[in-house]
């Protein structure tokens, strides 16, 4: 394909040739080319096949506005050819193709459109049901565009993220955006400017002026000067190749940034929290809908223009225009000046063209047809010609060509504004939807306001920048007034063409409103006929705008089309809401560096060295097993018969003190906390307002109005807030400090626990001196202070030692050495989980949930019913539930089938009805049978009841039988705890 003469607008380096492959065949381009421009320059016209009809699709735009130009690059699907820079060695392939993209094996589907009307999949292939399953699976297999093969797609590369703060975030680096940034920075505010293209300048970048000479007064020169000015202003941070993906609450702007090969990362996610936002995203070309308007060779005016100027590629040998705005006319003239044959230019506007453009077109010899537009493309696989027709008339003419440049004028790029909460209304003057209202702290400038005059565009940029700065508190009253006056003098948006479709398209069977989902004009008519007659309904039923292009190609056209079909004025309809992501980011970029930041105990390395198998437990990684036997049979046996050590450091630990500390404890805990005494652990639970148990632990008075208490590890992070929230109106004087990480916790458990501990401390550990539930502060080793509690979560004699985190390893080693000859071993969370289940000790979240209260899980004995003065959290709910029928109850299970253990979560059924579920089941070496805990309806909670358990992975007819028993299986009298 012809490369055009060099111009100053060229963004490729013709001294640096890059090789790549297209569908396996060797091709070449230049550094600076995009994949699309390189493909076009090498003669590729068909980039892939469309979603539904498998129609050939080519290069329509260079901004990633739709699925037509999505290709696979190096095995990664759905890459935008128009916005991805070419790299050496790229392997580029077409998508949704069987065989060659020019002769796709499924191309015949294009002839079956009569059997695939709008929304057909909602109504056909549903009966018979057995056949529907088969057909739907075949359709799903064919659906989609790119295919991801994770085994061959390669490393996505390093992804980064960056978090920015600014007073003013400017979206769009064209003339208006640059002016806004300069004005805001000049007023003393911090500015971040985000531009989706690799360079600033917007439309100015490739416009050399009507002489084509790129003189000092050319638009391009002006753009370059502005860009240099912006780049040299230290108060403005510029991010190019940085498209915006969304605007969220409180002016959070997000996007991603593509970088070059020299950068240490492939792509990065960025976020900018701004006090104000200026949106200067410009205008998109509104597509003209005509028959076969999707053929390879049909493209936007800017596409043809940028191919020529930015990439030095001739768009085609013979180019016919069907324009709707002056920029398209200017593009035609520029192509003519480069020697491209442009025999005809249709302009759908009957009048209103720039007289100078009209004059120059006449001088060029090209034929200008005002009030005309494209009606139909000629050519089956690519453009061979186009029929132009008079709008409202009967004349039509056919022109041979290989490229049709078509638009119906421009429409504001509303994506960012819509996400920010802007409202729009249709303008009969411009023929498109215009901005009706903006949220406060969001300002708009430039072509997004419908403006076309360069002076006005820049003036609105300056005004928006000053208004944004003023909203940030900058003192700009004088310059702001002058800016407003300048904008007021402007002519405003010029009249545009209101047409959506070309003349004489008939039923529009192949006149596409949306390329992504093959949505045609006929489909829109079908939607209306079925009652989906407003844009919001037609969008969803007819799939207009649900593809990667979202609002860009179909956008305003769908709304205007529905109005026309229904015979209503376009002012009666609204364009649909644009939702993030405005431009699709890659999932790898959203995942980001994906660091696994988690908490480790002071004994983590030690546990790992001892063979600990770690699992995530909330914010922590903890050793769950110490062998490859995940039943932990030997770990459990050793604790039951001997002695074991558990690192329980994530246990929540807190100090609460102050004149009203006891008041706060009384409020939050369900028991009478006045009964907490020095030297004793007072066990209790916290409930929420619906009576569910949310936490449990022990409370120990350690001084006057001074307490030490524990919580579950999962709730430790929210304990302070829990207390403060539930006492927020009381004005109590108390203090809370989270000591969870300050103290390590080591659990020494088993019949030999006392014998081990006696070897490391000279404290009196006799049962009389230190009974069950006692609390002592004892010295261990060389006088390290340990807060020691005699508890029994696993059902054996056990001591829980809390020592300063820096002493954790010292204390562990002491105990380990002391217990070596007694056979001490570590045990992990799974062993603990099993042993406490054998005791019937509830774990919150395992045997409790939203539907069950403290009473339902058998812990009602904790509740101090007599205390109403403390307004205990959850007490009113407990009173209400106390006599309620139909509640779930916690029961013990003995599994009758020795050969099968139901999974945790298996359903308890009564015929076809759900009557509860199994919370936990395990095999117990100590008990000699399979046991479990379940929550069942009260009618099934009677001891001796036989339960039927269903599991979805087993045959529908198979049930497991279990018998209801008391939930305290092991040492039900607690004798082993109290030894």
């Amino acid at each position, binding site marked *: 394909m012809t490369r055009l003469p060099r111009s100053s607008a060229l963004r490729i380096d013709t001294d640096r040739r890059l090789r790549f492959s297209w569908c396996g065949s060797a091709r070449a381009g230049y550094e600076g080319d995009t994949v699309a421009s390189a493909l076009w320059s090498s003669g590729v016209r068909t980039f892939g096949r469309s979603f539904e009809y498998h129609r050939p699709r080519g290069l329509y735009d260079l901004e990633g506005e739709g699925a037509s130009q999505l290709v696979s690059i190096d095995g990664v699907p759905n890459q935008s050819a128009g916005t991805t820079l070419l790299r050496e060695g790229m392997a580029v392939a077409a998508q949704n193709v069987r065989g060659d993209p020019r002769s796709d094996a499924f191309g015949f589907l294009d002839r079956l459109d009569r059997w695939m009307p709008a929304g057909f999949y909602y109504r056909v292939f549903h009966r018979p049901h057995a056949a529907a399953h088969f057909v739907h699976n075949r359709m799903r297999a064919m659906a989609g565009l790119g295919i991801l093969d994770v085994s061959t797609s390669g490393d996505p590369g390093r992804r*980064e*993220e*960056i*978090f*920015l*703060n600014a007073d003013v975030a400017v979206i769009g680096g064209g003339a208006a955006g640059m002016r806004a940034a300069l004005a805001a920075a000049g007023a003393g505010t*911090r500015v971040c400017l985000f531009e989706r293209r690799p360079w600033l300048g917007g439309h100015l970048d490739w416009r050399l002026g009507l002489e084509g000479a790129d003189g000092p007064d050319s638009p391009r020169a002006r753009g370059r000067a502005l860009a240099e000015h912006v780049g040299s202003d230290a108060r403005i941070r510029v991010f190019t190749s940085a498209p915006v993906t969304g605007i969220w609450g409180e002016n959070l702007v997000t996007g991603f940034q593509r970088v070059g090969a020299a950068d*240490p*990362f492939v792509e990065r996610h960025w*976020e900018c*929290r701004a006090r104000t936002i200026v949106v200067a995203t410009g205008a998109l070309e509104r597509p003209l809908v005509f028959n076969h308007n999707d053929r390879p060779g049909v493209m936007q005016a800017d596409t043809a223009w940028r191919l020529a100027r930015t990439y030095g590629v001739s768009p085609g040998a013979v180019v016919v225009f069907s324009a709707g705005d002056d920029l398209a006319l200017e593009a035609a003239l520029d192509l003519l000046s480069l020697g491209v044959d442009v025999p005809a230019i249709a302009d759908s506007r009957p009048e209103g063209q720039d007289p100078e453009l009209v004059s120059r077109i006449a001088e060029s010899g090209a034929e200008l047809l005002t009030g005309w537009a494209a009606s139909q493309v000629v050519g089956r696989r690519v453009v061979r010609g186009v029929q132009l027709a008079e709008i409202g008339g009967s004349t039509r003419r056919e022109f041979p060509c290989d490229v049709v440049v078509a638009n119906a004028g421009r429409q504001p790029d509303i994506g960012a504004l819509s996400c920010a909460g802007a409202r729009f209304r249709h303008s009969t003057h411009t023929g498109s939807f215009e901005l009706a209202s903006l949220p406060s702290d969001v300002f708009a400038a430039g072509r997004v306001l419908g403006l076309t005059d360069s002076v006005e565009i820049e003036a609105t940029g300056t005004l928006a920048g000053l208004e944004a700065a003023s909203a940030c508190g900058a003192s700009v009253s004088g310059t702001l007034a002058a800016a407003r006056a300048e904008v007021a003098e402007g002519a405003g948006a010029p009249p545009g063409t209101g047409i959506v479709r070309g003349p004489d398209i008939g039923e529009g069977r192949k006149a596409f409103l949306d390329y992504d989902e093959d949505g045609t004009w006929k489909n829109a008519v079908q939607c209306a006929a079925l009652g989906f007659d407003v844009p919001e309904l037609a969008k969803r039923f007819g799939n207009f705008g649900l593809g990667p292009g979202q609002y860009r190609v179909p956008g305003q056209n769908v709304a205007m089309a529905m109005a026309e079909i229904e015979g209503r004025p376009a002012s009666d309809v609204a364009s649909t809401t644009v939702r993030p992501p405005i431009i699709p980011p890659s999932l790898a970029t959203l995942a980001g*560096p994906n*660091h*696994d*930041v*988690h*908490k*480790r*105990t*002071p004994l*983590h390395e030690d546990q790992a060295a001892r063979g600990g198998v770690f699992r995530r437990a909330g*914010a*922590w990684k903890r050793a769950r097993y110490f062998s490859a036997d995940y039943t932990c049979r030997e770990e459990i046996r050793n604790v039951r018969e001997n002695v074991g050590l558990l690192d329980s450091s*994530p246990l929540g630990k807190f*100090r609460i*003190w*102050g004149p009203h500390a006891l008041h706060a404890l009384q409020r939050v805990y369900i028991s009478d906390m006045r009964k907490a005494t020095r030297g004793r652990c007072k066990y209790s639970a916290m409930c929420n307002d619906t009576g569910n148990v949310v936490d449990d632990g022990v409370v120990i008075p350690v*001084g006057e109005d*001074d307490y030490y208490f524990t919580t579950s590890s999962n709730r430790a992070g929210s304990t302070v807030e829990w207390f403060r929230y539930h006492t927020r109106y009381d004005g109590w*004087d108390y*203090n*809370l*400090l*989270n*000591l*969870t*990480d*300050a*103290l390590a916790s080591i659990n020494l458990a088993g019949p030999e626990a006392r014998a081990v501990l006696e070897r490391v401390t000279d404290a009196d550990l006799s049962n009389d001196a230190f009974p069950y539930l006692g609390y002592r502060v004892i010295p261990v080793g060389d006088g390290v202070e340990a807060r020691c509690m005699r508890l029994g979560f696993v059902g054996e004699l056990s001591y829980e030692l809390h020592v*300063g*985190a*820096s002493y954790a390893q010292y204390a562990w080693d002491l105990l380990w050495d002391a217990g070596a000859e007694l056979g001490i071993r570590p045990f992990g969370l799974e062993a603990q989980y099993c042993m406490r289940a054998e005791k019937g000790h509830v774990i919150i979240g395992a045997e409790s949930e939203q539907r069950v209260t403290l009473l339902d899980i058998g812990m009602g004995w904790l509740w101090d019913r007599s205390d109403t003065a403390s307004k205990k959290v959850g007490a009113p709910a407990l009173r209400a539930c106390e006599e309620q029928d139909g509640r779930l109850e916690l029961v013990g299970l003995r599994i009758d089938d020795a050969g099968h253990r139901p999974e945790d979560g298996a359903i308890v059924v009564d015929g076809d009805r759900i009557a509860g579920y199994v919370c936990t089941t395990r095999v117990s070496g100590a008990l000699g049978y399979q046991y479990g805990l379940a929550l069942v309806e009260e009618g099934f909670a009677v001891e001796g009841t036989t339960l039927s358990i269903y599991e979805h992975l087993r045959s529908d007819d198979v049930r497991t039988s279990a018998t209801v028993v008391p939930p305290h299986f092991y040492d039900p009298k607690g004798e082993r705890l109290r030894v």
Partner: protein
Amino acid sequence: MLVDLSHRARWDVQDGAIDELRPFGVAVPRDPGDVAIASGLMINRMNRTQASVWHIGPGPTPATPDDVAVTDTTDANAWIAIVGDAVAGVMEHVTSLDLFEPGRSLPRLIQGPVLGVPCQVVVGSRTGALLTFARGYAQTFADALLDSAAPAGLGTGGERVFSEHVAAMARGG
């Protein structure tokens, strides 16, 4: 540079009448976010009733006063310093907190997430930031920080780097 200061002493001061207290003989700053430096200590007002006290030196570590309002929290959290010209660039990779908002008096305490971990951040100057966070996160936080900020040039440094920074802060630099 990233400097590990976790061995240095830290305390929590909490009391309903905290404004009347003088832990270690130093007045507690009045407003949340305020930071005072005196006698080798940095006192950071956290909220209505609470302040954190960090031993930044120079000088020996003071003993924990026998005061019910004061709790030794040295073991409770990790403490790191990020020192150098690119501190702002480093922190941009790991937090959305606006640490270097123009016009803000320094040093300043800002509380919020860094790498998703709740932190106290004291911005001493444009060339130094101090962070404390729950001890359990220390290793994985440091790993993530060094990885995220490697493009900004973050490496590790010894305590002398921090001492020099403290001295520069004292000189007003």
